[in-house]
């Protein structure tokens, strides 16, 4: 067992990362050792990244223990960069997180300063002065490059800054110079945020935390009105909305709601979240309440304004869309399905259901397609095994035993021979002979015999695949 992380107190005692746990215990008997759980650490870091959404939507993860925040244009909202940093740190401290932060004009410079220096805010021109005394490891170099640099005596970044560039590149590769330039801010380094940045969003910070679901919904409606103004200005309507709820203790809940048509109506947006909150009710633990609510539009599309008319012909797509939204908000987007026909010979592939994504597809006029006549009204997802006896081996069944009941066949039509689709199932898949049979009481079933006598199998099996009207 080795130590992988230490807190400040342990570092002060003189323990080091990579030290054996037994040795560390010998040095300090009262040491509290907790088994490492990288997955939980990652989850915590992501939760913190969610929490940092309150400052900026552009949050990127940095390794196992760091976060990049792109605060371009955000700092003044918090009273300048210094106040920003102290606000972040004091809030994190009250959450029980020990953190360091640096604001600078380049991601590399911030990284170097926060891990190897102790400057809170670096002015744009100060990069070289801050970097000079830092060790070369502060440039985010691979371990072997850093070791090689130290071997030749280039221990500090200042040494690299003074050294001629061409020999450096020749000996240590161009990556070193790239890192150096990134740290100095001469090469732009884009951050890749972990979540897409919403195109429209509106938020409300509350003086007093909010617990009641009704108030949350009411506030969501207010936010939706603000978002509506933004959407209208751009002539767009939202298809995917997200409600971010920042709980007082730092946890962040994301509730997403899909809309079946482009929406910009505040009441409809609020209604989406009413169903959604009902559905996630148990997972959404309000605890001591939420302090920030933010409504974002993740995906939007063009929405031309329409005018109500007096013709009296109701537009059916709107109420239908409202229904689709309500159901999919409550039971998930795949719950409500639309019957779909597919190009296939095999019955189970020829017809199925596809989730309703677009209301226009439901109300569009039917496409005329030639379909086989004799298809059952209901089909079993998995054909059920039956014991059947036929008069002649290749003929229709005379009687069969399905679900522990004996049926005597009065009439039969068939066979309809359907071969497997070799391009999907392979060439050895057995052929089916379908029979439409009616028993003595008038029940009509769809049976098939799997495999051709002699050619494919010696004893074909019978299956029940569907029932007719």
């Amino acid at each position, binding site marked *: 067992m080795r130590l992988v992380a230490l807190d400040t107190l342990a570092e002060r005692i003189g323990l080091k990362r990579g030290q054996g746990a037994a040795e560390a215990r010998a040095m300090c008997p009262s040491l509290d050792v907790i088994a490492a759980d990288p997955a939980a650490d990652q989850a915590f870091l992501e939760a913190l990244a969610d929490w940092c959404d309150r400052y900026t939507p552009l949050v990127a993860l940095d390794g196992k223990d760091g976060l990049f925040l792109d605060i371009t244009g955000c700092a003044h909202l918090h009273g300048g960069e210094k106040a920003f940093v102290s606000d972040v740190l004091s809030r994190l401290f009250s959450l029980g997180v020990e953190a360091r932060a640096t604001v600078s004009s380049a991601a590399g410079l911030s990284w170097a300063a926060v891990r190897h220096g102790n400057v809170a805010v670096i002015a744009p021109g100060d990069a070289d002065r801050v970097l000079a005394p830092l060790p070369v490891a502060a440039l985010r170099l691979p371990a072997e490059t850093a070791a090689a640099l130290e071997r030749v005596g280039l221990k500090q970044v200042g040494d690299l800054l003074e050294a001629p560039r061409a020999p450096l590149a020749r000996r240590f590769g161009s990556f070193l110079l790239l890192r150096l330039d990134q740290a100095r801010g001469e090469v732009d380094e884009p951050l890749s945020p972990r979540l897409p940045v919403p195109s429209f969003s509106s938020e409300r910070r509350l003086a007093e935390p909010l617990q009641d679901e009704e108030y949350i919904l009411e506030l969501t409606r207010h936010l939706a009105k603000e978002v509506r103004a933004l959407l209208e200005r751009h002539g767009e309507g939202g298809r995917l909305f997200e409600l971010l709820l920042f709980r007082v203790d730092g946890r962040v809940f994301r509730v997403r709601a899909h809309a079946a048509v482009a929406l910009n109506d505040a009441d409809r947006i609020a209604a989406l979240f009413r169903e959604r909150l009902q559905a996630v009710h148990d997972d959404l633990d309000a605890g001591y309440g939420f302090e920030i609510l933010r409504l974002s539009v993740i995906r939007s599309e063009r929405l031309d304004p329409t005018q109500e008319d007096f013709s009296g012909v109701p537009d059916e797509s709107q109420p239908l869309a409202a229904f689709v939204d309500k159901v999919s908000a409550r039971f998930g987007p795949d719950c409500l399905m639309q019957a779909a026909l597919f190009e296939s010979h095999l019955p189970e592939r*020829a017809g199925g259901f596809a989730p309703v994504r677009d209301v226009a597809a439901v109300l569009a006029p039917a496409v005329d397609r030639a379909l086989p006549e004799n298809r059952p009204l209901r089909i079993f997802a998995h054909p059920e095994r039956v014991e059947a006896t036929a008069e002649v081996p290749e003929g229709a069944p005379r009687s069969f035993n399905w679900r522990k009941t004996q049926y005597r066949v*009065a009439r039969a039509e068939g066979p309809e021979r359907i071969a497997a689709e070799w391009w999907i199932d392979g060439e050895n898949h057995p052929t089916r002979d379908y029979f439409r049979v009616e028993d003595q009481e008038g*029940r009509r079933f769809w049976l098939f015999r799997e495999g051709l006598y002699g050619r494919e199998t010696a004893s074909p099996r019978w299956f029940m695949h569907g029932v*007719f009207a």
Partner: protein
Amino acid sequence: MAADAVQRQTVLSLRETIARIEDQRLPGSVRAASAADPAGFRRGRDETSRRRVLPVGIPELDVVLNGGLPLEGMTEIRNAETRDAGAAAGFVAALAVLYQREKKEKGSLAPVLWISQSLAAQEAGQPYAPGLKAHGLDAERFLFVSVRTVKDVLWIAETALSVPVFAAVVLEIRGNPACLTLSESRRLHVRARAGGVPLLVFRQAGEEEASSAFFRFQVRPAPAGERPLPGGSMLCGSIGHPAFHLLVEKSRAHAPLGIFLEWNAHDCRFYSLDERRSAALQANDEPADPRDPLSASAGRSHRAQPMGRLLAFARAS
């Protein structure tokens, strides 16, 4: 004199209320009295309170249905055994086709919503799109929801009934669940009437139970006719259009014992099965009284009651 008039007025208003609850046209005397408005204005409520119906085209069925299929409100269709689900689903789908066509003639492409308890879809099979299309339904406008609990089924049904876009809403449940009692069915019925949407409650393998539906039918399978040949003769041994044996279990009108129907998907309408054939069927396979399939046992406490004696059902759920 005055007290007498007040009493009569009270009785009249009570009768009117009862008639409204029972959704029947007012008897003549009550109608005349209620039409005589003291202020002298003629009220149009007799016209508006008339039920909107869709005639089926089979005289004996239309009589049972009191004019035709209700275009708003609840109708219950049940089958006795799971293996009859195909026939019952066929009848329900046929009604949905009629409703959808009626909407289409008015110029709106209305979808049919089929809400199913997932257990029901597992036991009796899922609706199959090519089969629905062959049955006459617009496959593109067939929406299907399958949820696990009956409560969710009811929630979706109520939501669907509040939006006036569906040609018909089908609610498929299995057996007699405890959370669909008389009060819930009343609620659904009222919703369906308010929304102007026909609601078909399809009870798979369920007992008959008191509900608020206008009508309740039991569907049994019936041997289909044979396929007609171009010359006018029949193809011997073939299986033609689907046929149903309909037992009317709840209706205000006098109901015949059983109605044999055939659904023609090409014409999108029901035909009455050949009288001679249905008579032969009755004689051969079916007992004379379908409610009393076994001969009555004498001197036992649980012997079948004669028809017309049953006033209310015990709770089956």
